[in-house]
């Protein structure tokens, strides 16, 4: 907080925040300050050391590089910014993201991009359980595998998994598109394998492209909602 005025003075330069000497609140406050007066677009965060809540609530077109591992909710509610984590991330990376891009070079823990409304989350490693839970329009591309209950109650957007998916993929799914290249341990309630039409191949090709992965879109299988649980029916009682 103390040094935000000096931050403004350094127009056009890259700003480095070292969490060995500054707090998470200092970091977030400085990033939020940019909303008033866009001065510094490039940010570098050193020594994150697994701190939680790094670069949360950013709402400007900033480019932020976090050098190391981050804890929970890194890049939470991101809007517009491009945030790269050069390490692993804890639970809920890019949770409720609205737009922009979050790129994780390592692995992500559970609930990655939970409830995210927009933007792109790229995970180069694996993601834990409930990846994309209740997602509402964001796109997620995972180079590795995802854990159980991924895309649980997914409402919109797309989840692309280049590796395998764990148990109960897409349980209680609404309208999220799921593409998996490897195996799926089991599908959740009301999630079924679906035909891959041209529009889906196009979507998948574009997402892989945006993520920078060269996997062959044709090698993927699409999953989606059977839409059988959309309305309460006595006959469905066993599925709930």
């Amino acid at each position, binding site marked *: 907080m103390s040094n935000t005025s000096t931050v403004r003075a350094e127009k056009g330069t890259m700003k480095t925040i070292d969490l060995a000497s500054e707090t998470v609140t200092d970091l977030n406050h400085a990033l939020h300050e940019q909303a008033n007066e866009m001065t510094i677009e490039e940010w570098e965060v050193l020594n994150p050391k697994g701190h939680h809540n790094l670069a949360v609530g950013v709402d400007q077109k900033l480019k932020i590089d976090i050098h190391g591992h981050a804890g929970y909710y890194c890049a939470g509610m991101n809007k517009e910014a491009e945030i790269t984590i050069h390490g692993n991330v804890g639970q809920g990376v890019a949770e409720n993201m609205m737009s922009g891009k979050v790129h994780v070079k390592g692995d992500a823990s559970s*609930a990655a991009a939970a409830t995210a409304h927009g933007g792109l989350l790229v995970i180069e490693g694996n993601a834990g359980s409930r990846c994309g839970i209740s997602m509402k329009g964001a796109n997620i591309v995972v180079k590795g595998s995802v854990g159980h209950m991924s895309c649980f109650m997914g409402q919109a957007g797309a989840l692309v998994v280049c590796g395998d998916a764990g148990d109960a993929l897409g349980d209680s799914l609404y309208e999220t598109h799921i593409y998996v290249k490897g195996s799926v341990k089991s599908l959740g309630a009301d999630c079924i394998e679906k035909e891959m039409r041209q529009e889906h191949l196009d979507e998948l090709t574009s997402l892989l492209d945006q993520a920078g992965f060269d996997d062959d879109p044709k090698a993927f299988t699409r999953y989606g909602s059977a839409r059988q649980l959309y309305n309460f029916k006595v006959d469905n009682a066993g599925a709930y």
Partner: protein
Amino acid sequence: MSEKKKPTTELRESATFDRSTMAEIRRAADTGIYDIRGWGAKRKLPHFDDLLFLGASMSRYPLEGYREKCNTSVTLGTRFAKKPIVIDTPVTIAGMSFGALSANAKEALGRGASAVGTSTTTGDGGMTPEERGQSSKLVYQYLPSRYGMNPDDLRKADAIEVVLGQGAKPGGGGMLLGQKITDRVAKMRTLPMGVDQRSACRHPDWTGPDDLAIKILELREITDWQVPIYIKVGATRTYYDVKLAVKAGADVIVVDGMQGGTAATQEVFIEHVGIPTMAAIPQAVQALQEMGMHRKVQLIVSGGIRNGADVAKCMALGADAVAIGTAALIALGCNDPKYDAEFKAIGSAAGFYDDYHEGRDPAGISTQDPELSKRLDPVEGGRLLANYIRVLTLEAQTLARACGKNDLRNLEPEDLVALTVESAAMARVPLAGTSWIPGQQTY
């Protein structure tokens, strides 16, 4: 001489299998699905009517009814927030979703609350501009579903309420059935139109209280530590839940008892889960006191609050404020006898209507039907609600002055006695005329 009529047995209704129980068995047998409805618990429960105030006499002196000041304003969120909320009356409006309620009803709630300087609350389904525009103090709910959640609205809020549960359904998620998922509601929730929407019952990105502590810090970071963060729980294991909520970093804790209203829940849930509001308050207060946090972390209580006596009793038991849902809707015209014929036409009656989920409310409140919604004028609704809250406040003040208190928050358990053994045990005040509090050692 006429023949003497032979004595016969009287028709006797079974207390166990009474008529409504039998009707429910027949309904279940016919449909094969549980009953869903709105409103709160309808069974008789130990409640605030079972408590009485000990007005002042020789051992205490009262305050003049119309002359001496009795403060009603309360500051919420003094623990961490840079901008705590100051409300002029301790009666706040509980979270009720746009979706469950019409946009006009939400606007009326905002108008009424603002007119008397209190807060209103969003609900499952996000913040509408009507509501933000008309609410001078708006609490934004952070629910498991996260429908419509976004950082811009989060920053527009005057406080954030992390909802873990509701008194009507602790452990259950929300429901909004297809007929109310209109185009606007569907868009706000990112759902296909017409689906029966089942909100999540658990938050998607944290599980226990340790995670919640980090989540709360995230919300504080996003909002730069400006606004208070509330935690709302349905009343069950209230003593422990309140301790954990304090530990997780709440500024304010909302405890909603089992009488609390809902927009749509299984009947079995409404009537069989949770504890009565009156029983929850002493548990919450004890937890806060043991942590040295009573009055530092404020306690808001809801569930079946109807009049100023209920408000005063909650405060005497240690609450800092209350929230009303059902009563606010009734003030707007919910279940109004003037619509009796129309209620009857949909198989209900004025005073009994609880099928909020069907969206056919003749009073235009729990509906998304544009024609029905028009029946509620938000300006007039706001006026009615403001009047009603004024009455609650005046009544609570009247009782407080009679007990010699110049601030509603100076009311204390010592001002109360109980009419029944049950209420004495739950509220932890003596049975009237005795010094006996069941379950407690008296010296």
